[in-house]
């Protein structure tokens, strides 16, 4: 099997330093929603300046380069064991080159491994075999500030008047946005999973964040819910950085999983505006980054 560690290193560099076009375009539209001279508008303008500078200098958009979450879709013939080794090599190199901050800390001793490796699940790797001959690697860097404000609700929730239906989902998600205030680096993007168990719900809530921010949900009911969540969250007036303002969310992505009769979880992953995720595909000798 060929060695693609250098390509993966480039994927990490691109993800950390070059905000995807769909996110930047959404931020540019958000600036126009804020009052000239307001702290909210100033925050968004600073954010956009930083995005341009990071791209130009190839420096991290945010110093919290987060948990690297890789999804690898591989055709038959690739070894997941070797791919894992190559991803680890790339991550160590990316840390040396200061594209990534050393972020992997032993929870018992408090010791930072210094190279972004350590124990199981750091970095986080998902492997899935696919048909065809294209290898796809998707990477998301998810910072700790936004991860900390994620939330999971078990419905019904009496305090929030939330039953086991989409109206109940809406109520608990709005509560999650309220609870987060500006702590998760608003304006944020929500990944919401309805159903599953506590583990699969959070996984699915993150998987929805790999969608393009400008697409529409193929399920019309969920598409309507996504739009409503953004519109109503923006009425909360939390605004960029929690300074107050019209842009609390840039987007919401909703998915669903089957559940047990006894359980009805709503899992909310909050993504900061520094919504760093990139994709790399290899088909034969053709290498492409998106």
């Amino acid at each position: 099997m060929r060695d693609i560690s250098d390509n993966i290193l480039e994927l990490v560099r691109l993800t950390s330093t070059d905000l995807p076009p769909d996110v930047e375009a959404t931020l540019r539209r958000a600036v126009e929603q804020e009052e000239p001279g307001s702290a909210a508008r100033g925050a968004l303008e600073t954010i956009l300046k930083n995005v341009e500078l990071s791209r130009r200098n190839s420096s991290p958009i945010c110093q919290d380069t987060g948990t690297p979450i890789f999804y690898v879709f591989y055709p038959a013939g690739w070894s997941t064991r070797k791919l894992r080794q190559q991803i680890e090599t790339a991550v160590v190199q990316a840390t040396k080159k200061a594209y990534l901050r050393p972020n992997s800390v032993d929870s018992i001793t408090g010791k930072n491994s210094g190279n972004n490796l350590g124990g199981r699940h750091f970095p986080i790797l998902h492997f899935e075999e696919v048909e065809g001959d294209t290898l796809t690697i998707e990477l998301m860097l998810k910072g700790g500030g936004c991860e900390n404000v994620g939330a999971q609700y078990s419905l019904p929730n009496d305090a929030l008047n939330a039953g086991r239906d989409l109206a109940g989902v809406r109520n608990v998600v709005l509560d999650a946005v309220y609870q987060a205030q500006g702590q998760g680096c608003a304006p944020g993007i929500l990944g919401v999973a309805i159903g599953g168990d506590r583990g699969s719900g959070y996984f699915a809530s993150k998987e929805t964040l790999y969608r393009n921010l400008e697409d529409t949900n193929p399920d019309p009911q969920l598409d309507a819910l996504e739009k409503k969540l953004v519109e109503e969250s923006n009425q909360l007036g939390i605004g960029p950085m929690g300074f107050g303002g019209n842009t609390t969310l840039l987007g919401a992505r909703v998915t669903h999983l089957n559940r047990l009769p006894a359980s009805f979880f709503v899992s909310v992953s909050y993504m900061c505006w520094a919504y760093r995720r990139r994709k790399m595909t290899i088909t034969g000798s053709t290498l492409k980054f998106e």
Partner: protein
Amino acid sequence: MRSLDIPLSDETIRSLMVGDPVLLNGIMITGRDAAHKWMVDTFIKQTRQPQGDDLEVYAAIKPLLAGSAIYHCGPVVSGLDTGQYKFVAAGPTTSIREEPYQGMVMQHFNIKGVIGKGGLGPKTLVACHVVPGVYLHAIGGAASLIAQTVVRVLGVYKLDFGVPEAMWVTEVKDFMAVVTMDSHGGSLHASVETHSKAVLQGLLAKA
């Protein structure tokens, strides 16, 4: 925009109000989760015996923190191999995790400015009144831009906490921030929370 020189005088602090944008100049130190817990456990509550270089570090940071600012930041640093440190990315981290410690740390070290993002709670707001001090909000995620205003890294303490958690002594020039908690009891975070809570309750009632 007002330019402020560190050390900050009480008079300067008292003149600052929520909403004021400022540019900071001078020497300040980064400190976040591990540093705050270490300062409180070892020197304030003294529930833990000083170990290793604790006392030396305490003696070194005490004069640096007096009248100065502490920055909630875990930077990306280049030059780790050579010791020629440079901040590559240095935005603020979420401050609320320091709420159990911040007020005590401000009072113990006479810290006048706390810099971070997302704001702090009522205990810190009391300390801002008493010390007096202010909370200065930097733009979360604007890490490359902010790193350019960190003109020099003068040294580092507690590197054994790891690069993000170490206490980096820096010289800053035109470091941008907005006052969101002042020494007169004003907190933008408290008012945004109150407003958004009322709106949320209205939306939930509408369902």
